[in-house]
Structure formats: C-alpha cells, structure tokens
C-alpha cells in the first residue's frame, strides 16, 4: 500500500470515528437534558474523571486492563469471521483459574508459592481456553452457531463460578468472597495513590502478541483468509475446522487471562466476590472495545483505554453533576454503541455476503 493510500485510509477511519463520537455525545447530552441535568457539566465530569488528572488517568488504565484482553479476544475471533460473545464466560472461568492456581494450589502445596504468579496466569488462560473449547467443538463438529452456544456457556459459567466461589473455593474467614490469590501472585501497584498494577504490562504484551500472530504467522494468515472468504480459503488448502478451533482457543485464553488479571491485578481483595460483581461485564465491554478498534488487537490497546476511562469517569457524574448512576451507565452505553456501529455494520455486511444473502 502506498503511503498516500494508507494516509487516506487512516484519515477516513479517524473521521468516521470522530463523527460517531460526536453523534454519541450529542445523543447522550440530549438524553441528560431531557431529565433536567446539565449535559455540559455532566460530560465535563465524565471526561475530567476519566482523563483529567494523572491520578484518574492511571485509574482509567487499571479499568482498561481487563478490557484490553477481552477486546483482543473478540478481535481475534472477529478476524476469522467468528462472533465470540462467549468472552464473558471465558473471563469468569479465567478468574476462577487464577484463584485455583494462584490461591488454592499454593495453599495446598506451599512449595509452589514462589511460582504463584505464573501459575495464576497460566491457570486463567488455560481455563478460559477450555471454556472456549465447548462452543468451538460444537461449531466444528455439529455446526452449532457460536453465538447460541456461547450465550449458553456464559450462563453455565456464571452459575458454575458462583457455586465454586460460595462452596469449594470460598474463603473460610470471609464467606462472602473466594480465597485470595497468594501475595506472590499479586501484581504490585505501580504508582502510589492509584489502583494501576503491573497487570497492564501483561495485557499490552498479550494484545500485541495476538496482533503479531494475526499479521505475521501462517496461522494468522489462514485465520484472516478464512474470515474474509471461506470458499477461497478452503480452495487454497486451509483446514477450516482446525483454524476455527485454534482461533477460538486463542480467543478463549486471552479472555481467560483478562478475567484472571482482575483477580491478580486489582487491589484490595485479590479474590472474586460472591456476587461476581467484580468480574461481570468485562467480556461484554470487550465487544465494544474491539468494534471501536475495528477488530484490530493492537488498536484494542487504545480503545480499551478510552472505554476504561469512560467507566472510570462515570463515577464522577453522580456526586459532582448529580446524574443518577443508571443514567450514567446509559450515557456510556450510547457512546460505546455510536463508536462501535461503523465496524459492527461492516462486520454484519461481510457476514451476510459470506452467507450469500
């Protein structure tokens, strides 16, 4: 691609995104105005709270950390034409993996304590991957659409994890949460006065690695070609079922790692709450993150910071602009939807084209 074409392409994408952002902001301002809130003040606090000072920006990065991975997980699947809505359940299982391998196992075998962190990371990626195996096999062997099976797997994961957190891996001293991971498995806080931990390095490295796999390896090429045109891929000798399976497993391990990093990379409890309140929605938020990044795992790093910043900033809307918390959720939802729509549309159109509709 010549420089000029690249430049035009990038400019067009930026224009598109800016336009979407403006529409999203306008819609949310309209919504807040209807309820008698001051949209200017509310949006000011939203962005000030997310990006206004060094401290809040560091917190925004912490909110972005798990979204980076669930976003990358969705992006990897989307590149191969798969819609992995199961990242949510895979993240739950990843969080459980971190607790089992970074908390329970070192407790039972104290000699493994020094390796708690790699164990927790590997454990979460593995459990996330295993949870993705179900929908992947159903698709490859039986042709079950991944969206249907993934949604079912999400709920199964939700209740399985809830059972585990309240039963076998509960913290006997604090029955309202799971066992914490061992101190060696906890990422250190990077800057005093913020909740940002070293977990963000893992998230960035994993997202970039996913991008490199996609762009530089043979497997990545097969994924992309299978996503763009399955018939051509099959004609070209690509083993489609194998590619689907591997893509799904890669995606699941990324999402699992994302769930695991919430447990190992977020003070102060280092465990899963019995309500699952600290691990829910990271998978679903990852979908928006990925769509905003046009399903590019490297660009996900940036878009996750945007979305993480919005979630962080939304905390300021209630106390300082008086916007009730339900409405602040709706505002973020609107902005994310508006930003995701251009890519979501392209994705849907490609899918229809592939189905020959």
């Amino acid at each position, binding site marked *: 691609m010549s420089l000029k074409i690249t430049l035009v392409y990038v400019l067009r994408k930026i224009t598109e995104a800016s336009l979407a952002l403006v529409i999203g902001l306008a819609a949310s301002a*309209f919504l807040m105005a209807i309820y008698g809130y001051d949209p200017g003040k509310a949006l000011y606090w939203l962005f000030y709270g997310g990006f206004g000072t060094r401290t809040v920006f560091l917190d925004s990065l912490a909110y972005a950390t798990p979204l980076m991975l669930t976003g990358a997980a969705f992006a990897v699947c989307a590149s191969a034409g798969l819609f992995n809505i199961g990242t949510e359940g895979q993240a739950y299982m990843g969080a459980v993996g971190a607790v089992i391998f970074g908390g329970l196992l070192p407790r039972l075998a104290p000699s493994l304590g020094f390796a708690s962190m790699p164990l927790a990371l590997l454990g979460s990626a593995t459990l996330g991957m295993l949870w993705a195996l179900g929908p992947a096999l159903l698709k490859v062997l039986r042709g079950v659409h991944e969206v249907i099976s993934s949604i079912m797997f999400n709920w199964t994961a939700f209740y399985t994890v809830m059972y585990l957190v309240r039963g076998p891996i509960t913290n006997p001293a604090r029955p309202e949460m799971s066992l914490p991971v061992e101190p060696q498995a906890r990422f250190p806080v990077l800057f005093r006065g913020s909740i940002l931990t070293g977990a963000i390095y893992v998230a960035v490295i994993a997202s970039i690695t996913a991008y490199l796999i996609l762009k530089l390896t043979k497997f990545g090429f097969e994924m992309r070609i299978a996503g763009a045109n399955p018939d051509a891929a099959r004609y070209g000798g690509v083993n489609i079922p194998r590619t689907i399976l591997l893509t799904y497993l890669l995606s699941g391990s990324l999402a699992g790692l994302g769930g695991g990093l919430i447990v190992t990379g977020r003070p102060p409890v280092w465990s899963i709450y019995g309500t699952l309140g600290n691990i829910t929605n990271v998978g679903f938020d990852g979908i928006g993150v990925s769509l905003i990044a046009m399903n590019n795992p490297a660009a996900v790093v940036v878009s996750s910071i945007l979305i993480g910043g919005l979630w962080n900033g939304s905390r300021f809307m209630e106390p300082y602009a008086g916007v009730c918390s339900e409405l602040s959720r709706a505002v973020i939802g609107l902005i994310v939807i508006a930003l995701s729509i251009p890519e979501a549309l392209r994705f849907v159109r490609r899918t229809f084209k592939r189905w020959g509709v």
Partner: protein
Amino acid sequence: MSTNPRFSTVIAILVTVVIVAAVTAGIMYAVLPSTVPPTTITIERTIGPGVTTTVTRTVTQTVTATPTPVTTPPTTKFKIAVVSDIGGRGDLSFNDMGFKGADEAARDFGVEVLEFISKTEADYIPNLRTAAMDPNVKLIVGVGFLLSEALVEVALEFPNKYFAGIDTYSQDIVKSKYPDKYPLPNLLDIKFEEHKGSALVGALGCLLAIYYNYPHIGAVLGIEIPVLWKFEIGYKWGCNWAIEWFKKNFPAEYEARSRTPGNILATDPKSRVLWVYTGTFSDITKGYLAAKEMYAKGAIAVYNIAGPLGLGINQAVDEIVRPKGLTIGPPFWIGVDANQDWINPGFVVASMMKRVDKGVYYATYLVLTGKFEDVSRKYGGVLLLGIGTEVEGVPMEGISMSTLADLDEFIEMGIAAEKILGKPVLPMPPDEIKKRVREMRDSIPSWIWSAVAELERLIREGRVQVPLPLTEDDVKYWRGILG
C-alpha cells in the same frame, strides 16, 4: 473489500443515527420518573448537647420540620461522602438507610452530601479515594461490609480524613495486617447490637405463641457467618425470657397452658424455636421453602434473618392467609434491618430495626464535634450502637423494635424507591398501610406489648444481659441450653 465506500459510509451514519435515536427513546421511555423541582430551605436546629448548626440545603421533597429562617449563611463548606455498595439506591435496605442518615445529617448539621454509587465491586477503592481527594469532604462513609478492605487502604492513605464503615470489619483487618497502627484513629467500624434487638422480637414471638396457642416460632437465617449467631442466640434467648416472664406473672395461666397440647409452653424447651441456615442471602425460593415448612409445623411467626429471603417468607405467609381471606395474622413474620412492617401490612408483626441511618448520622456528629479520633482510640475503632448506648455521654441508639411511629419514615423511603425504580413498591396506599398495621397491633393484647417493653427497659438499664456469642464454642454452649 467494500465496493462502494461512500455508500457504506452514508448507510453507516444513517443507521448510527437511527439506532442511537431508538436507544435514546427507549431509555427515555423506560427509566426515571419526572424530577421534582428542587426547593431550598433553611433550618436551625439544636442537636445533642449544645451543638447548634445552621443549615442551608437543597431538597427534592417536602420537609416536615418547621423551618426557622436564619440570616447567617454556613461559614465552612463541610461535606460528607457516602459510598454505596453495588446495591445502590433503591434497595430499601442498607444503602437507602445510609443515604437517609446522610440526608438527615445534612438537614440537621448543614453538611453537604456527595453520593458515590459503586457500579461494580472494582469501584470501591476508586470511589473512596475520589471522595477523600475532594478537599471539602471530611467524612467518608462506606455502606456495607464488602467495603472493609477498601476502607482500610484508603483510610491509611488519607490520615487527615475520617472514614466510617457500616457493618465493616476494617479494624480487624488493620489489626492483622498493620498491628502497629491498630486502632486506626481516623476509621470507625459502625456495628450494631443485633442480639439485643433479636431478643425483643424473640420475646414477642413467644408471647404470641402462648396467647394464640401455637407450638413454635421460627427463624430463617442466611449463610452461617459469625454476625448471624448474634441474631440466632439472641432470638432464642428472648423466647426463653418471655416464657420465664409469663411463668412469673401468670402462674395459673402458665400451669393451664403448659398442659394444653399445641401450646409453645407444652413444647420441649429445646425445640420451641425452629431455625435453619439456608446458606444463601439471595435465593428467595430457599427462604420460601424453609418458612413453609416452619408454618406447617405450627410456627406462629418466622423471623427473617436473611435479607431478601424475607420475600420468600412473605410468600409462604400469603399462601396460608389469602385462601382464608385473613387481613390480620397469625401467622406472622418478623422483619429485619429496616422497618419491613409495610411490606405485608397485618402480617409483619414487627421488625428488628438496625438503624444504619443513625450510624451515618452519629459519625457525622462525631466529626463535627471533634470527638471522632478520641472515640476511635477509646473503643478500638468500633462504634457499637445498640439499646441504651451512650458514647461520651451522648445517647446513640441503633437497635430497636419497630413502632407504629417509625412506619412513616420508612413508607417515605418506599415512595422514594418507587421514584428511583420506576415501579410500584408499596403494596397499597400509605394510609391503608398505616390503618392495617394499627389494626394488627390493636388485635394483640396489650400485656404482650408491655412485656416486650419491660424487656427493652431491662436491657437498657443493664439489668439483664443478652448473650453475645462471638466464637463457635459460645454458640455451641448456647445451643446446648436453648436448643
């Protein structure tokens, strides 16, 4: 990839607009009631010994207090911040009561209230910290024990700000993690003497069973955590006290009823109270099933010690009383934490109220009077509110059995929750609720109410001690005596 980029862009924009508009319209339609225009009122009030404060505050409801206009505006901009747990506003329980206490502190002390709603549990630390970083915020209240860890971290970071947690065990965490800093003087765990309140409702339940000839009373508990032992043993102890009281005051009646089959006096002393730990604070069905079994065995009243499971108990009661067309129990159930008497008027005989609102209010008072750190040091960082509690000579009660007079403010809370949730919460109009509750209370003989009042007085004066089980051995011991 796409054949006509301009076309696709136009379509994308159009669809964006349409979807955004549709979502906006949908949300508009679905959420939020119309907002009431705010009115500003100014009140002067005297609270506690010699504390006079001036208040200017914006409220969105009518205030019943008589306003006395004052000329001097507040000199300092003192703020308190309330950080909710993920239940948020509209839960009719801990969070709503926490905000209610903050609103009352605002009314009486002239402080400003900042509300931080935690959307996920990951928000706890950032919300506490954001609140603490506001230069005008002096006191930060975390509502609910899930904030315990977060409160410790942030309280250590901001030694010049005051922190209070409702039902938290933050000082225990300080003790084990940072023993040299215990007790952290800028942090108070606000706890309640639930065992004393449970004794009152236990006594009430048992006296009802004696009067109406029922063999049992019941208790549906949540997960077996130490705090619930206080409820369980207090309740059983209260039942036992009531029976002793009856024996002493009505010896002839006692003899007669002891021989009446089916009366609680004829029941084996160790099985008078039916009790079960359901192992959940959220599965309403389990509460329903447990209560149904208890009512089938002849429990006159079942005490809800599992939060939302009360709705399951209520359903079990409804199934018994609706076919019979009853408007007043028995059977009854007993509410917990908030005044739950309005949930099913006529069938909730009383509630064991744990005044979270008072906790927030007193914490504000302690900060304003400069006593916060002294109290924290003196009492090991724990502010224990109960029946007849006095802290530094100031009465600070936090536990009581619901009265008819309490009903109004909790009906107000229900009305506020209706506005937030956008759906009906109250089962019938407020006047109807009050009428039914009054009828129910009148249908119960006055000697029962005065017996319970006597127990309350004895507890307040320290003339009886309700057992306080703190360890597993304590609980075993008391179960051995009371069943």
